């Protein structure tokens, strides 16, 4: 058993499940209904994906625009499962089945636009088995930027942030290219950390610190989830280092940091910034990251970052792309992309992600993601885990990529191999703790019985691809990588406090400027349940 929250590192233990929860050893008089012999197997809590684009407008645009992706990957219906399709942007049912088949039991959609929140929840209602949650996007919406620009009181900003979490049924706050999505609407094409949005006169730095403060003051467990400035731009490692400093010691999560760790050294003016970034992450305990590893092959990038998705449309493969300005709230950009192992830049991106995994010391502050589907579809996680756990396999792969990229990378010199315990931290314990999911990510009494059991195979990719057993809320849902029972997961939300007085201001604002009424913007608890989501779990604020 590997249960890092309880410090259990490969010990043999019994687990008792009752009514969907893990419980202490019952009295001998209690009849055990079913016994699973898990000798020689590896037991972990169900895995948690802290950043995966699984539901909402931009994901659906990605699905709509890529019939060729779906034709290559049809999912047939069975007696218990629905049909579907899609490799890089799978349909909702396929998403739930595939995650559960891999032993994942909770997934967080990282970019829920408030204007599109109802849609995101409706889609996620059709993602079976796994638990879901979402970060609401702020920091490019007119209401917030207007407040910031006019120097509104901190408590008012907190009220607004809290109101948004309540209204959109979110579990955290994310900011994407702070102020940059908005700036793009005013025809700005780039926005550095200290550059001002031409309309509001505020900088990304101000937006970041204001939101990070609000998140902390509201007691939201997950730190402000940041998709920083200058994603994908060579040299952006300096922006990322500045962003870490800009946090001023406040908790901050830097998402898909691989895309923000690029230098400009070498003939091609593109180099790895992993060493600098890892050093900064190691030195700043307020910072957590997820990697956004890229893996080679066709995928589709779906992001709120219209400014940089527009800039990146030249690389679209196949050549089609969507940019959308949305509701004075945010935006989205969808650009299909093919990562090639024989491309210098793509190969280096691959090494940069892996270098970051291996150079950041603390597995409690680094999470395993591909930023699905931006770096690769989530189904490539087992392969990624093998790259982290098996140095010789990693070096074999390294020898197949673009020669110069391999030559300039320090990856071959990194000996570190992740242990099962570290994998359990990175994919279970740490995400649960970071999100504030009280009874997920561990195997102690009181935890939801989300349990994944693996065969202890030397080939870690095979091992993590098809767990022997996956239990969700105590139900055996998958066996040997195949769904055997379909249930509905829950939606995790927060309900931070706020002064209801803000709704008066907001109502006036909505009536004047929006195209829907405030009451219709807000999502009720009942709506989530009515969609068939199972139920809502309200997590506690700190």
């Amino acid at each position, binding site marked *: 058993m590997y249960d890092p929250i309880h410090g259990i590192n490969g010990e043999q233990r019994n687990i008792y499940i009752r009514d969907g929860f893990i419980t202490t050893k019952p009295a001998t008089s209690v009849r055990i209904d079913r016994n699973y012999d898990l000798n020689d197997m590896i037991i972990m809590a169900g895995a948690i994906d802290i950043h995966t684009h699984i539901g909402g407008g931009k994901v659906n645009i990605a699905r709509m625009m890529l019939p060729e992706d779906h034709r290559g990957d049809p999912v047939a219906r069975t007696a218990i499962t629905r049909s579907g399709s899609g490799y890089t942007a799978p349909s909702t049912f396929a998403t739930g089945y595939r995650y559960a088949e891999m032993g994942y039991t909770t997934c967080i959609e990282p970019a829920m636009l408030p*204007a599109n929140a*109802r849609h995101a929840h409706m889609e996620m209602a059709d993602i079976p088995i796994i638990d879901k949650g979402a970060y609401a996007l702020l920091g490019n919406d*007119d209401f917030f930027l207007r407040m910031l620009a006019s120097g509104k009181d901190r408590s008012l900003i907190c009220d607004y942030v809290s109101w948004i979490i309540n209204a959109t049924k979110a579990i955290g706050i994310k900011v994407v290219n702070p102020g940059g999505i908005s700036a*793009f609407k005013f025809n700005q094409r780039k926005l550095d950390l200290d550059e001002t949005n031409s309309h509001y006169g505020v900088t990304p730095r101000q937006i970041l610190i204001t939101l990070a403060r609000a998140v902390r003051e509201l007691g939201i467990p997950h730190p402000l989830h940041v998709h920083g400035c200058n994603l994908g731009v060579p040299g952006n490692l300096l922006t990322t280092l500045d962003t870490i400093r800009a946090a001023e010691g406040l908790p901050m999560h830097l998402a898909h940091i691989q895309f923000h760790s690029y230098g400009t050294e070498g003939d091609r003016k593109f180099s790895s910034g992993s060493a600098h970034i890892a050093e900064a992450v190691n030195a700043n305990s307020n910072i957590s990251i997820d990697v956004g590893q890229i893996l080679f092959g066709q995928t589709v990038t779906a992001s709120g970052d219209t400014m940089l998705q527009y800039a990146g449309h030249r690389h679209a493969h196949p050549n*089609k792309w969507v940019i959308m300005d949305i509701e004075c709230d945010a935006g989205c950009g969808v650009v299909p992309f093919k990562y090639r192992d024989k491309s210098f830049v793509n190969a280096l991106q691959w090494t940069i992600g892996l270098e970051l995994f291996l150079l950041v010391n603390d597995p409690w502050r680094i999470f395993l993601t591909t930023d699905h589907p931006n770096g690769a579809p989530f189904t490539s996680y087992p392969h990624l885990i093998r790259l982290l756990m098996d140095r010789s396999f990693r070096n074999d792969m390294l020898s197949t990529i673009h020669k110069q990229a391999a030559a300039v990378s320090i990856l071959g010199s990194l000996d570190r191999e992740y242990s099962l315990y570290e994998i359990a931290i990175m994919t279970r314990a740490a995400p649960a703790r970071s999100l504030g999911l009280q009874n997920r990510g561990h195997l102690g009494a009181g935890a939801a019985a989300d349990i994944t059991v693996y065969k202890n195979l030397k080939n870690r990719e095979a091992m993590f691809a098809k767990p022997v057993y996956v239990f969700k809320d105590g139900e055996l849902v998958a066996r040997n990588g195949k769904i055997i029972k379909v249930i509905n997961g829950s939606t995790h939300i927060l309900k931070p406090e706020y002064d209801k007085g803000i709704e008066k201001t907001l109502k006036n604002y909505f009536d004047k400027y929006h195209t829907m009424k405030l009451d219709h913007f807000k999502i009720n608890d009942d709506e989530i349940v009515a969609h068939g989501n199972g139920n809502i779990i309200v997590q506690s604020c700190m």
Partner: protein
Amino acid sequence: MNSAKHPDKIHKEVPCPFCCLLCDDLVIQNRAGILKVRENGCSRAIAHYEQVQPEIQPTIKGKVVTLKDAILHISNILKSSQHPLFSGLGTDVGGLRSTLQLADKTGAIVDHMHSTGLTRNMLVLQDLGWMMTTLTEIKNHADLIVFAGTDAVSGYPRFFERFIWNKNALFNKNTGGRKVFYIGENLDTRPGISPDGQQPVTVQCKHEDIGEFIAILHATLAGDKVNLENLSGKRLKELKLLAYHLTNARYGVLVWAPGEMDFPHAELTIQALCEMVKFINRSTRFGCLSLGGNDGGVSAVNVSTWQSGYPLRVNFNNGYPEYDPSRFSTDNVLKNNEADALVWISSFDTNTRPPKADIPVILLATPATEPDFTPDVFIPVCTPGVDHAGYLFRTDSVVSLPLKQVRVSGYPSVKHILDCVSGLI
């Protein structure tokens, strides 16, 4: 079985489900089950809300039966069907989810009554993509609006009132000064006159010729060599005027309505519009808006996409979804005898008609619907957003609104019927 007795009530902030703008500020009075639009109703809303509901019963081949028997008969038809077709799809998100579940189960083809227009858009999205915007962005930001092949108001009466001549705007402080252009023919351009009387500019041109005009305009903007000698003096003037305003807009918007571009390969015209907007974005900001997808059309595209991976015209017959936007259109499926049963769903607009087909036809439609043939089964259904709560997507495909119940109906919902049928199969 129709209107139950209930007290008078005024419902405020009612979202209107009868077009894809989903205006949500209507005031509806319910007096003993008779509805009256008190405020903010357009002609379309008034016609639908205030329509008197006949009291009719479910029928099998024209003979009155119980709801239970009608549902049983539907399940028997579907059980013996090898290739059912679910079309019309005029329902809300809940009804669509039930439709797709049953379609998946019975190996059906799924299409929508307005998908001819919606598919034109999808072909553009799937070929080269586009740059879009949404209603709140237009209301607050736009300084130039070009309507191509549509006047907006004929299909969406409150478009100008709500999004163009709005008094309050966050960014554009002179909404009355918005420049309005039309390209097309037979358009009602009167709403394009600004509050202080500024006339819109109309480029008169057949809808089939919009693509050509836009191609020349795009080339002109790009500085390509264009042989303009064949253009009349008037057309040349219009071209130059439009080119000037497109380039100098701070936030321009181009509006089309795919359902109103009714000629072969209209998708190429839409693509020409989208490619020009992409080009303009190299130097300034510009976004597109597509108007269309009434009767739950935008919702159908979205739900079908997230559940199957494909935006309608999907066939579940092989056990997994297959997409063919031409072969699986309702017209082609019926013409080519690819279906042996048709389920036609239309719970919003009474004026829609199921297509005539030489196969068993199951009609789930509003009670006032008058099909021009006797369907095998007809169950009158209630309307989402009038008789029950629900959800619909707006024309911009971003915003979805909660629908309210403003009347008590004895008629079942599409969702209820299909879930019952599903339970029997």
